[in-house]
């Protein structure tokens, strides 16, 4: 019975994510014409653009985040939790705000031109899109790499030194391979994000494949075409997922020894300390200071632009949507993560990969899939909050899944077996033995879903009950009509709401 509940939960989480995919394929097959259009050279160019952007963003994210992760994980700066929170803070800033802030900086009419007379070119094209996306996606790599660094057994590095490796050699041959699983997971999250993102990218005038799919749908009201054009994205997502799992990672992540490891020694920075602090300041300045400053400038244009009532409405909506989605996503990810670590065979592998596939689709296509399903099959759910929460939760399951799976993986199956030998059923055993150890993973995963769901747009737009609004939808509505003074209070409220969950996320990491 209880085993059935665990399996059933996993199946729900896995198959639920299939719903929009099924819709997509259904729609795509409706008109064979859509597939033929894929052969257009423009689409191939756009696909190339997308892949180039994924590549540059991953490289830039890693180059930017790894030094920061080391400084705030392994150097004398590691104890500065405030700094860690600041460096990670860009995750809570909506991408199009970062794009608008960057665009507002340069040019003849830009902030720099008006304040100090510098006329920098405004970011655009591949380099502009890379800069912008990097500024708000590098925290995923940073958080992941830092957590992995904190968890590394320092005696491995000492062993390598005693075997004749220089510090640089140790970093390359011991630390990096150990970080790779964490980096792969972060790369997958960022890669999928870049694949589906088109808001900020289009503002920076870089044409990507997702944007074309969006335009196909938004401009032409063409569902079939948009669905057909989404299929390559599905393929890319599957490839990314496979790539993140493949490779010679055998044995990585296991701790060889049985004892508790010593915390790693913190490197002294000495003369490099000002340089390090300068680097972190630059990161925080661009990732947090710039958008925040822009928002305050907007606010000053007309501080009374938004009434308290609208603000409260948006705040309540965000709390309900993001909070509910986070809880539901955790409930779905829990059995899925259990299957992933304790299950065997390709059936489990497929089940676990399904939510990641769903997560790789552009959210507006996913939203339309849910609307379609709600109308045809679940009319009692359609237009209700439950459907929005369900769609958000299933879309964001992979974010909750990651930390939970890591938590499961670190728990010995012996614990569970011990609980069962003491007379608990499989579910009870799983819960009793694992729950305390999983709390950290669960809170981290839940906080991550909350952060992303709070800033999510297309799903919320499409599936909201009548009259429902979130801070993100209100910010976007105002900003997209050039009503920046009206957008600012909503955006600032969103940041204020998201920040505590970010702090929570950071507290859940290993004690240092």
């Amino acid at each position: 019975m209880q085993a059935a509940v665990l399996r059933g939960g996993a199946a729900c989480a896995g198959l639920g994510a299939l719903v929009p995919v099924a819709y997509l394929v259904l729609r795509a097959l409706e008109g064979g014409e859509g597939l033929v259009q894929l052969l257009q050279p423009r689409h191939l160019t756009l696909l190339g653009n997308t892949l180039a952007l994924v590549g540059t963003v991953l490289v830039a994210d890693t180059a930017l985040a790894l030094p920061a992760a080391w400084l705030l994980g392994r150097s004398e700066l590691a104890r500065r939790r405030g700094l860690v929170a600041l460096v990670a803070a860009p995750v809570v800033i909506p991408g199009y705000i970062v794009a608008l802030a960057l665009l507002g900086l340069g040019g003849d009419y830009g902030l720099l031109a008006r304040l100090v007379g510098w006329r920098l070119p405004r970011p655009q094209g591949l380099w502009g899109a890379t800069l912008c996306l990097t500024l708000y996606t590098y925290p995923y790599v940073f958080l992941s790499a830092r957590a992995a660094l904190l968890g590394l057994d320092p005696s491995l590095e000492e062993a390598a030194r005693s075997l004749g490796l220089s510090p640089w050699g140790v970093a390359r041959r011991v630390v990096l391979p150990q970080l790779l699983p964490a980096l792969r997971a972060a790369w997958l999250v960022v890669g999928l994000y870049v694949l589906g993102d088109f808001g900020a990218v289009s503002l920076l005038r870089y044409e990507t494949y997702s944007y074309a799919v969006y335009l196909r749908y938004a401009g032409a009201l063409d569902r079939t075409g948009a669905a057909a054009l989404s299929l390559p994205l599905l393929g890319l997502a599957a490839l990314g997922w496979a790539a993140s799992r493949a490779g010679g990672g055998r044995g990585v992540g296991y701790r060889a020894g049985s004892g508790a490891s010593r915390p790693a020694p913190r490197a002294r920075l000495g003369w490099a300390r000002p340089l390090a602090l300068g680097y972190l300041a630059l990161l925080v300045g661009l990732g947090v200071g710039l958008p925040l400053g822009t928002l305050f400038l907007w606010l000053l244009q007309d501080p009374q632009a938004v009434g308290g009532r609208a603000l409260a409405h948006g705040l309540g909506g965000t709390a309900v949507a993001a909070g509910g989605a986070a809880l539901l996503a955790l409930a779905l990810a829990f059995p899925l993560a259990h299957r992933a670590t304790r299950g065997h065979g390709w059936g489990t592998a497929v089940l676990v990969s399904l939510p990641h596939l769903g997560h790789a689709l552009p959210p507006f296509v996913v939203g339309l899939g849910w609307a379609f399903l709600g109308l045809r099959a679940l009319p009692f759910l359609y237009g209700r909050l439950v459907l929005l929460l369900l769609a958000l939760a299933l879309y964001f399951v992979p974010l909750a899944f990651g930390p939970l799976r890591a938590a499961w993986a670190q728990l010995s199956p012996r614990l569970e077996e011990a609980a069962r030998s003491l007379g608990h059923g499989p579910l009870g055993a799983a819960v009793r033995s694992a729950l305390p150890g999983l709390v950290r993973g669960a809170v981290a995963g839940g906080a991550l879903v909350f952060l992303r769901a709070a800033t999510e747009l297309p799903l919320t737009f499409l599936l909201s009950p009548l009259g429902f609004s979130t801070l993100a939808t209100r910010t976007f509505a105002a900003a997209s009509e050039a009503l920046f003074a009206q957008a600012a209070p909503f955006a600032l409220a969103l940041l204020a709401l998201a920040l505590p969950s970010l702090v929570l996320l950071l507290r859940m990491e290993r004690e240092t």
Partner: protein
Amino acid sequence: MPFLRLVLVLVLGLGALAGAQELVVYCARSRALVEPLILRFQEETGLRVHVRYGTQAELVALLLEEGARSPADVFWGYEASLATLARRGLLQELPAEFRERVAPAYRVGDERWVPTSIRVRVLAYAPARVTPAELPASVLELGDPRYRGRVGWAPPNAGFQTFLTGLRLLVGEEGAQAWVEALRQNQAQPYPNNIALLQALAAGEIDFALTNHYYLYRFRAADPAFPVEQILFAPGDPGNLLLASGAGIVRTARNPVAAQAFLAFLLGEAGQTFFTHDLFEFPAVEDVSPHPALAPLAEELAARRPAVDLGDLWDLPGTLELLRRAGVL
């Protein structure tokens, strides 16, 4: 329009009799823009209004998907989506009073939706980098080498696409195709929307931009010295195409009476004043005068607009096909 007021009074009476009535509006206009007006309607009538905001594409798709199950009473959007819905049979015919309330110049051939406010396509430019002699008389001149790389356009933008639909009606399919091709060859710079165009003008990336008229006033409200100006082309030029926001009543509306009251409110003095004073659009009716800042443009509107009926601007798919063929979308 005493008759319209009568309708309103009648509806209000009915509403009071029926107790708390509810109205569902699918609104393609931004919440940030129109929410105050909706709140006011609610206060004045006591009707509870539920609004689903979204892009016009999303809402049209949703209406198509929902079919008879749709809770929507009113669709409030723009000319292209309204014309599409009307042709698909998703809107019901409106009483003649609504059509008559609209100024004759803006009346639509179609009986199933009414314009509620008017916008116009303009040429925005950066006065710092453009001499008066350089200002083109026609949108068709922008393919000329002297505008090479200096013009910005927004192919994904609905306003631009409707303009292109109008151009196809005015100069024919081949003429429109040739114009798009000419601009592309002339390195017209693509931007995602009108706001981005105006910002690019201010930033110095482009010198001219094809856009809708009202955004500039929002930038000027924030900064009176915003370094952009805008003009109309010569009389009758396709570049001066009129656009409309408008509304219709969904065929399966559960509450058609309240829906009519809502349309009457949009066309009434409060609604029209709001559109022009708060949103810098032109009133769709004769007895409300445009915002003073719009006056210079408003005076020329009638004389300069090309001869296109707002109700004929439905062929968005054809326009998109054209843009795709040209490789700009």
